[in-house]
């Protein structure tokens, strides 16, 4: 039956004068401007390749549950030819055999044009599986006027505070009757917690998981992490930041002096504050600063009939002019290719310069492990409880046990001693 249909189908194609080849593409639904930009990028692609009879067919799916949608499509063997996915999920899809490597479709010079963080995010076991058009950054925004009112001097441009200096600044602000800090603990997505606060663990010399083993036992709740997160907990204990904020943007509304937040707030903050706005790297617990990175990136399905065609789309959508510039103009993310920065003059100034600087130096990809989703969710739950006063070591131990149980179940042979 299938063979028969295939024969009929192929015969039908053969008779057509110009064989039209369709690339099915899925994208997560972002802001309206971003969706419009995506549609325009696809439209431009279709125009450029009309002569060769190649066309993309773009579908959007809501952001929340996009991952579930992908999972169900994968299980039903109904994945599109190319799709975007959140960076930390690349390892999981590679592990399930769903992504085709991209190495062959990009040459070395092209790859060197990408931000190192994007290459790191998309590389699993030495092969490149995903590439993004943009990246992300989290910084500590500050209000110069509020700091001055409390007698706090911000660090030199491009420099960040050590944790003690950061805590001293918060104390001075509080003493001056100014609410020190916004941490966005009301964020409903678990990912915010892992993404924004992993640098606390990293800069304290720790890590979340040993991705090679993979193993969290003895890693997630180790001494360094307990020490770092105890320091982080102090922020809430001393009431420098709210554990249950009601206002989603207290910094923009002028109530709070410091904002631990992402690149997506750069435009609104600048509009609200103008010259009062400053940005510095996140405070560091050890000698080394750390920053998060990662965002949506593009991959090609391992089951696509024509990987070359799907890769053509990935090349287009990550091309500095065709893909990166229009999408970044729409969503305000950090351009993913060095050559694309020329189109964005704001990157010579703060806070944008800080975004690019940390992505090229201190930023670290979230753990590239098939168990990332579980790890992130359990770690986020632990962070919520720790912020509200839970015992740091016991709570990390619980998260460690839960994640390790999932790893052991899926990888019984590799559990180790």
């Amino acid at each position, binding site marked *: 039956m299938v063979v028969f249909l295939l024969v009929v189908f192929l015969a039908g194609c053969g008779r057509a004068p110009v064989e039209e080849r369709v690339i099915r593409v899925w994208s997560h639904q972002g802001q309206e401007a971003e969706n419009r930009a995506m549609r325009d990028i696809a439209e431009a692609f279709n125009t450029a390749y009309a002569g060769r009879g190649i066309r993309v067919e773009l579908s959007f799916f809501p952001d929340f549950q996009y991952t579930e949608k992908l999972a169900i499509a994968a299980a039903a063997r109904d994945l599109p030819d190319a799709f975007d996915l959140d960076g930390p999920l690349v390892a999981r899809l590679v592990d399930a055999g769903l992504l085709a490597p991209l190495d062959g479709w990009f040459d070395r010079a092209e790859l060197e044009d990408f931000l190192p963080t994007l290459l790191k995010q998309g590389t699993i076991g030495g092969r490149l599986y995903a590439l993004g058009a943009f990246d992300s950054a989290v910084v500590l925004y500050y209000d110069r006027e509020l700091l001055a009112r409390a007698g706090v001097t911000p660090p030199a441009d491009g420099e960040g505070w050590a944790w003690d200096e950061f805590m001293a600044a918060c104390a001075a602000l509080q003493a001056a009757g100014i609410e020190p800090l916004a941490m966005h603990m009301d964020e409903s997505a678990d990912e915010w917690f892992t993404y924004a606060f992993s640098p606390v663990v990293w800069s304290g010399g720790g890590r979340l998981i040993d991705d090679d083993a993979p193993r969290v036992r003895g890693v997630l709740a180790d001494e360094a992490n307990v020490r770092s997160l105890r320091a982080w907990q102090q922020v809430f204990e001393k009431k420098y930041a709210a554990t249950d904020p009601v206002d989603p943007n207290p910094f923009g509304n002028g109530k709070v002096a410091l904002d631990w937040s992402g690149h997506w707030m750069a435009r609104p903050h600048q509009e609200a504050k103008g010259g009062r706005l400053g940005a510095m790297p996140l405070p560091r617990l050890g000698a080394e600063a750390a920053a998060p990175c990662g965002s949506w990136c593009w991959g090609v399905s391992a089951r696509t009939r024509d990987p070359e065609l799907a890769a053509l789309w990935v090349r287009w959508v990550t091309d500095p002019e065709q893909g990166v510039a229009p999408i970044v103009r729409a969503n305000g993310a950090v351009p993913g290719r060095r050559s694309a920065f020329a189109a964005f003059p704001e990157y010579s100034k703060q806070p944008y310069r800080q975004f690019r600087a940390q992505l090229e130096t201190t930023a670290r990809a979230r753990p590239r492990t098939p168990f990332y*989703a579980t790890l992130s969710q359990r770690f986020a739950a632990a962070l919520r*409880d720790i912020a509200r006063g839970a015992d740091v070591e016991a709570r990390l131990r*619980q998260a460690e046990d839960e994640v390790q149980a*999932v790893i052991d179940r*899926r990888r019984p042979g590799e559990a180790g001693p």
Partner: protein
Amino acid sequence: MTAWQRKRGRAAPWFLLPACALLAVFVVWPLLRAGWWSFTNADLLSPERAEFAGADNYAGLAGDARFQRAFGNTLLFALLVVPVQTVLAFFLALWVNRPEPAWRWLRGVFFVPVVVSMPVLAVLWTLLYQPEQGGETGLLNAALGVFGVPPQAWLRDPALALPAIAFMSVWQGAGLQMMVFLAGLQNVPKELLEAARIDGASGWQRVRHVIVPSMRNTIIFVVTVTTILAFRIFVQPYLMTRGGPGNSTLSLIQSVYETTFVSQDLGRACAAALVFLALVGGLTWLQRRLAREERE
């Protein structure tokens, strides 16, 4: 049997066919699939690689601290909610069972929480339960403060979070049961009530000896449905506490959902879902059994 009846008998299967086909495709087949997967190590993203794993998933559930916590939480939630909600709804129904318009209006008021979407209610109650935060206190703590009760961290204290959510759920769901009881009250024979009144039965005696016995079927129905709904608890804790603090409000459904879509461990999730199905099915069956015996 007339010829017409015989003919009709032959036609019957054809009329049943569409319903049976739909049931087979959307209920029986998925259940069989889930049953099969629960005996494999199936991965959500690549179920075709599944290997037979015997009863490993079921045995694993027995030793899974998180699943057991979810199981215990759900059981405790049902134990808190079912009796309180049923009794409350019953007395609400008795109270508002009057013909005057004012009482009809009151019925509407009690029914409002049933109609409002649960996520909205979850946000409202999260604010109500809010402990002191930047000088602002949640309404509940402020109200208790008037009586000298110290403020409580309702949703953040592992001991209080589940009861707090149960309380909110009783408030939310009682209106629906009240409506069912109101309908049942219409079936209580007027003559019996009048006879009881003439015989000098007090209000309580009338409830105890006339109304409750004649509403047995309604009560059984309400208890059964409330139990099933209570076991399906998910939205309130998921939105209000995400199952925290420290898993103290983790529900069975949330645990199954996360095993499926976060850990993507399809085999284990199917096993957990089937255990859940057996639990709810078994309880429903037991309730019906006990109720029927009482009726005889």
